[in-house]
């Protein structure tokens, strides 16, 4: 599934535009906040009056466009009426920000991050985009019509937006109080009680923070996130959040650095972070920084089933709500199937050749689309199973929502 495309920006177009796609021409009164997307050039420039922007696959010959325009767009088939997109003036980049029919929409808060994880799937960029990001996201929230079931705030590290982040969460609270809101954050900033208190004051009615913890040993955690002192800040931050009644989920990415002490980490979470309402043990995503650190990180999921089973057993017998994300059923031990979730967002979820003949494919979460380069060498198709066997897949009580990254 495609979420980005691009073309040639027109000269008159200076500031980024966020608007809602229309694949058909609209009457003049209905064009506000709309971006017209067609495969031709209107016969008369007046036909573009009132739109926020114009995208076309056709080539525009040096004429002045009355609205921000990107022409010679490579691909528009994925753009559907009511999708919300951002048009970039400098490079002609067109990013889909929101798809009303998807359950995997995100608020992308910022590119910046104060950590630099070895396996970051979305490597940070060191430029101050706070003001622009906040503006873009507030515009996005204004344009969403139908309340989504769920939204995820991600980045970068969203808390680097500071007060602007609180404004975004407050806007979501006011417009979509019924929407489950999940925020992926390293949690370090919550070591400062003042900010935690401010977040709690927003009183979003259905809000969970997903926070990674990679080891019970501070040295290993700090190494994974490449930041001295991060472990202390995250653990203190988690306690501050709990103190203010904010809900948290712990997220652990499984790789060669985190797997050896996985059971000890599970015990640490139970003893120190008992208040966590969900623990997600997640497969490695081969994108971003991961490929370049693969030598340090790779372990075939088939080879860590013992550690995974021990950690899951430890947490689940202690009444903790634990899930396994991003793993294929054919590499997971059968005892773990009930903890497996179909966790990968629709736009990056694939199945590979071996899956074609698999009898349990519809119960399996499949792969990230970048898994084609490297995945477990034990992937194989399974024969169809009786319903009673399959009933157990994901049958352990489910978290309210699943978010992969």
């Amino acid at each position, binding site marked *: 599934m495609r979420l980005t495309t691009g073309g040639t920006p027109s000269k008159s177009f200076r500031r980024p535009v966020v608007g809602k796609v229309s694949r058909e021409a609209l009457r003049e009164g209905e064009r506000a906040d709309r971006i017209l997307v067609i495969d031709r050039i209107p016969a008369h420039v007046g036909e573009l009056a009132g739109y926020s922007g114009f995208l076309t696959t056709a080539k525009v010959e040096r004429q002045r466009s009355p609205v921000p325009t990107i022409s010679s767009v490579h691909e528009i088939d994925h753009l559907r009426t009511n999708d919300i997109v951002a048009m970039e003036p400098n490079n002609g980049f067109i990013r889909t920000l929101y798809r009303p029919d998807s359950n995997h929409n995100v608020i992308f808060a910022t590119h910046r991050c104060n950590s630099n994880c070895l396996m970051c799937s979305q490597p940070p960029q060191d430029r101050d985009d706070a003001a622009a990001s906040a503006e873009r996201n507030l515009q996005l929230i204004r344009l969403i019509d139908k309340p989504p079931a769920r939204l995820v705030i991600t980045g970068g590290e969203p808390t680097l937006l500071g007060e602007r982040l609180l404004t975004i969460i407050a806007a979501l609270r006011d417009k979509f109080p019924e929407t489950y809101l999940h925020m992926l954050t390293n949690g370090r900033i919550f070591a400062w009680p003042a900010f935690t208190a401010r977040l709690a004051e927003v009183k979003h009615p259905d809000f969970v923070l997903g926070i990674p913890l990679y080891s*019970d040993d501070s040295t290993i955690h700090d190494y994974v996130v490449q930041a001295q002192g991060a*472990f202390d800040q995250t653990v203190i931050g988690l306690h501050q959040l709990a103190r203010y009644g904010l809900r948290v989920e712990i997220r652990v990415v499984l790789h060669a650095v985190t797997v050896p002490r996985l059971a000890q980490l599970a015990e640490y979470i139970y003893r120190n972070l008992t208040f966590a309402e969900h623990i997600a043990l997640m497969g490695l995503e081969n994108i971003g920084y991961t490929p370049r650190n693969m030598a340090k990180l790779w372990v075939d999921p088939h080879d860590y089933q013992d550690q995974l089973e021990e950690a899951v057993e430890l947490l689940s*017998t202690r009444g903790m709500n634990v899930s396994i994300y991003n793993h294929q059923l054919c590499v997971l031990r059968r005892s*773990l199937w009930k903890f497996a979730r179909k966790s990968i967002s629709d736009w990056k979820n694939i199945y590979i050749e071996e899956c074609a003949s698999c009898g349990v494919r519809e119960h399996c979460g499949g792969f990230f689309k970048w898994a084609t380069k490297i995945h477990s060498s034990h992937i194989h198709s399974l024969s169809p199973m009786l319903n009673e066997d399959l009933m157990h897949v994901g049958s352990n009580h489910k978290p309210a929502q699943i978010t992969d990254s």
Partner: protein
Amino acid sequence: MARVFYPIESYSASQVGYRLLPFRFLRLDDDNELLVNEVGEFVIAPSGTAQILVRKQLTRGSDVYSTLKAKQFIADDSSSPLLDLLATKYRTKYSFIEGFTKLHIFVVTLRCDHSCHYCQVSRQTADKNTYDMSFETAEKSVSLMMKSPARHITLELQGGEPLLAFDVIRHIVPLAKRRAKLLDKDLDIVVTTNLANATDDMLFYLRDENIKISTSLDGPAFIHNANRPRPGNNSYELTIQNIERARKILGPGRVAALMTTTQLSLEHPREIIDEYVRQGFHSIFLRPISPYGFAVKTKKRTGYQLDAFMDFYRTGLDYILQINREGYGLAEVYAKILLTKILTPYGTGFVDLQSPAGAGINVLVYNYDGDVYATDESRMLAEMGDHTFRLGNVRTHTHRDIFTGDAFLNLVSASCNQSLAGCSDCALQPYCGSDPVFNHATQGDVFGHRPTSEFCQRNMGIIKHLFGLISNQDPEIMRICFAWIQNSSLHEISKAGPS
């Protein structure tokens, strides 16, 4: 943007060495020692580990180093010692102290139809006036109980046989409920009865008032009837019939049973446990006999050696675990309490095994004559003429008088095992308790002498036995332990293992 990644060495401590945080240790067996931190987190390690640890010879980067750092036995400069975290865990462990006295035992009469050998206090008489709690004393007792700062209060109605004084119960219950509502307190009511005199009307009353029943079942007929003589020698048959009837009227979850261990019981742990399973109970409490009251006087008949009790307990616990393995959920209550302390971040407010001791702080006994005692055992001592733990009387003492009086202060001076000789440096201190009343009764002073203390030997024996079970790391045993801890059936515990 090209980013640089630094090796793990960049994130470990820059200074050589580490600091010790508070912990205690003991030898578990020939090969292993047990190290326990201030909040009850533990490490079972090969013998010699404690010595290496305190000599600062642990190798940085080794697994045991990481574990001891993560469990806050040591701190180095790679991380702050996270003392706030330790404080939070300490607070959690001791949250049972919050609210002060929660369990309030009312002795509504001393009269009883049974004449159990081990019973300390009951009287076989029809004289209502002398041995029943008067309405006036009952009202004053309720007033005193409501002075407790606890938000959640349990009122236990016992005797003697409390159903023989049902008019007193009917006087206390609505009064206590009214006062609780007024003061916004939650009130649980339990009646401890042998059920022999329970009419249907009484049971309907208990049902309507949402009162739970705790009854006595000592085992199969030959044990129960031997332990609990009554006219007709039919205590067992009556008990079983009445449990059945009480369950029908109140619901199965509202009727619990307790057993008392005697010399005879010691020889029959399996038969006793089988009886509990046969009667459909899902918990059993393998209790040691108390050294009070008639139990002391008839020591020849019911007294027994600690070793014999330990054998009984271990055999019983093994058998109970086997029953659980076979699919019937049956918790041993004492093990459940200890396992909660050992395996979870939580504490338990079990008044017989906590520090500070439950006496007075978490439990108060209101005798039929208005005297207030720190524990049920204190009242039994008083029946034998020793009034050391009589804290006051509801007619003459206020809440403040009671908790600032000499009797109470004497008691609390020995209430914390954190500061008792022989306890303060014991690795099992966070799991154990102190019992100044027991110390006084058996050793002549509230502080006691640990090397000769039966309380110490028994609890150390049981706790070490449980650590033996835990150290085997049998996933099935751990599932059973956590099913007990969480009051859940084995099926509810998500089982990673072939389902």
